[in-house]
């Protein structure tokens, strides 16, 4: 379960890529932290920097990447300063990762039992027999039926959903402190997706791993996340609890993202869409990078980058609209409906709290 203990802190991370065309400024000052046992979802447009951010946490950046500033604290150590040996141990034992395509993380020539057992043998020095027994347990835990008979099968003998379960088994065999899941269910259909998500939730409860979950399916985010960070053009533009982001979003990019997805009861003639294309990170625009596509852009957006404004202790958004002197704007209809729901939820929470207080006072008397 969630606690307040921070196990990972990313501070002012900046990453560039050297390319023929010039310097791609992929990560432009990103900070966030991760608490023990929580699920943090990172959402945002294609190319906004989600994968690069998490790869830097694993110490797995491409050769042409240059860290231009910042640090990544994991147990009073900076991941960015770790040696290759330290990183190998980090990846094998403490931070694990699963990707969209399970085949990229599986060895097609190795029996799956052996693949699941290997991290235990390498990083924990567990003897083969014992490791294989634990692998079998793990296979059962992730719901592979008839595990005893399938332990010697190869990856191609499994369906896509089953392969992703095997990848999860490999990732979790060492009970990592952090699991990074980069679009783990995007290639799966809803039925299999639901099974995998349930499995991740169950396992998280059992071994209280923290999860960083990257997806562009906001439905999945709503069901999985405790907190959400919204990225745009190499920056986090808004973060908060899942309720704050879904019911009380403040950044116009978050508004656009939430409105462009139909829910099962969207009936309007047209879906809201974010016009235009993402900015060129070779030469990011001055000011707020979202301004050219933002129907709510202010003059200052094209001149000066907005700082984070505080919405609550847990909720921050980088938009000039939150400045006390900014004009009042009316968000899209869908967002207004969401905000109304937020107001109701807060009222209900308040009433409940007062009710408790009265009960307690009565008890004391």
């Amino acid at each position, binding site marked *: 379960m969630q606690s307040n203990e921070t196990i990972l802190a990313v501070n002012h991370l900046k990453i560039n890529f050297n390319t023929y065309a010039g310097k791609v400024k992929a990560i432009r000052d990103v900070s966030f932290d991760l608490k023990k046992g929580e699920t943090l979802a990172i959402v945002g447009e294609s190319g906004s920097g989600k994968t690069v951010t998490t790869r830097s946490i694993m110490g797995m950046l491409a050769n042409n990447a240059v860290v231009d500033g910042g640090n990544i604290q994991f147990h009073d150590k900076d991941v960015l300063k770790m040696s290759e040996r330290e990183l190998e141990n980090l990846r094998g034992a403490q931070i694990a990762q699963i990707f969209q395509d399970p085949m990229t993380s599986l060895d097609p020539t190795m029996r799956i039992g052996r693949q699941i057992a290997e991290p235990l043998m390498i990083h924990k020095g567990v003897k083969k027999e014992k490791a294989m027994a634990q692998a079998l347990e793990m296979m059962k835990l992730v719901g592979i039926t008839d595990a005893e008979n399938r332990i010697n099968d190869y990856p191609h003998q499994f369906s896509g959903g089953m392969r992703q379960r095997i990848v999860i088994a490999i990732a979790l065999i060492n009970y990592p402190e952090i699991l990074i899941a980069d679009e783990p269910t995007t290639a799966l259909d809803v039925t299999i997706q639901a099974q995998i998500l349930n499995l991740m939730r169950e396992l998280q409860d059992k071994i209280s791993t923290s999860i960083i979950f990257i997806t562009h399916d906001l439905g999945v985010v*709503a069901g999985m996340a405790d907190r959400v960070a919204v990225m745009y053009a190499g920056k986090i533009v808004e973060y908060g609890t899942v309720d704050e982001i879904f019911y009380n979003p403040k950044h116009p990019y978050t508004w656009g993202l939430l409105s462009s997805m139909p829910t099962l009861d*969207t009936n309007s003639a*047209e879906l809201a*869409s974010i016009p235009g294309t993402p900015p060129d990170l070779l030469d990011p625009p001055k000011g707020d990078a979202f301004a050219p596509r933002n129907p709510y852009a202010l003059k200052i957006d094209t001149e000066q980058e907005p700082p984070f404004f505080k919405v609550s202790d847990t909720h921050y958004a980088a938009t000039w609209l939150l400045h006390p002197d900014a004009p009042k704007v009316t968000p899209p209809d869908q967002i207004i409906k969401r905000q109304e*729901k937020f107001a109701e939820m807060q009222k209900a929470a308040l009433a409940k709290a007062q009710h408790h207080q009265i009960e307690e006072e009565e008890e004391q008397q």
Partner: protein
Amino acid sequence: MELDNAKKVLEVKHLKQYFNVGKRDEVKAVDDISFDIYEGETFGLVGESGSGKTTTGRAIIHLYTPTSGSIKFNNQEIIGLKDHQKMQQFRRDMQMIFQDPYASLNPRMKVKDIVAEGIDINHLAKDDADRSKQVADLLATVGLNRDHASRYPHEFSGGQRQRIGIARALAVQPKFIIADEPISALDVSIQAQVVNLLKQLQRERKLTFLFIAHDLSMVKYISDRIGVLHYGRMLEVGTSDEVYNHPLHDYTRSLLSAVPVPDPEYERTRTQIKYDPKYEDGSKKRELVEIVPHHFVQCSQDEIPMYQERAKEMGLSVK
């Protein structure tokens, strides 16, 4: 949409598409399905991976020769059609948009030649100037500009590539478009752009769509009617409101209960319905039966009363 008086443009009857027939690894990818599509509507086809959605689309557009069954397009039987001219007309009238905007465009062809492929094959341009004008108009229609005509596919984003694919399909002035997962490979915000474009084109050109997708909220949003496929069989057909709000078949209920909704409160209380395939076992002959007007469920004669009962429980008037 007034279904009682609507005109059927496509009638699929007892369509079977088997692969590797007679071999050990025979696959009944599509196994005896029947449905109609009305003029001007969007018919959504949903179902899990491997249920036969793509195979159905490919069989209809005649990329495969079906194992058996009948496919009528505007009252013309397509299976076994020998008349060359009629076949060519059919190939113009029905176009397909593919899932992968990267793989479906030839990387060595300029955008204008990709878009004009159908114009050239069908000799639809009077001369070069006319061809260029048609291409420019098509690009404008899908929200690209004429400068894009001389570029190559790799210079475009996923959403733009999908627009090129749509422009290519529109070039021969089709009446019917099969869209197989046209937005699955795109970013959420770009998905909305492409869906809006498809809807706008449908209004302007009176197009009929067969829309295949596994994102059920998007299918619900875009479709007038929906068919649910499972293991190559059609289990339920009805208007999208009916199928989503009053699903009758256990499989549909289970499938819908698995759809994640972008609403945390809803997600916290969502209970997923486990599927028990007892009404799909091979022991009985089952066909689509109209339980509620225009709402069909695959069942055997003795299962009809049960579905009628379910419909009544949900306040529907039974046929």
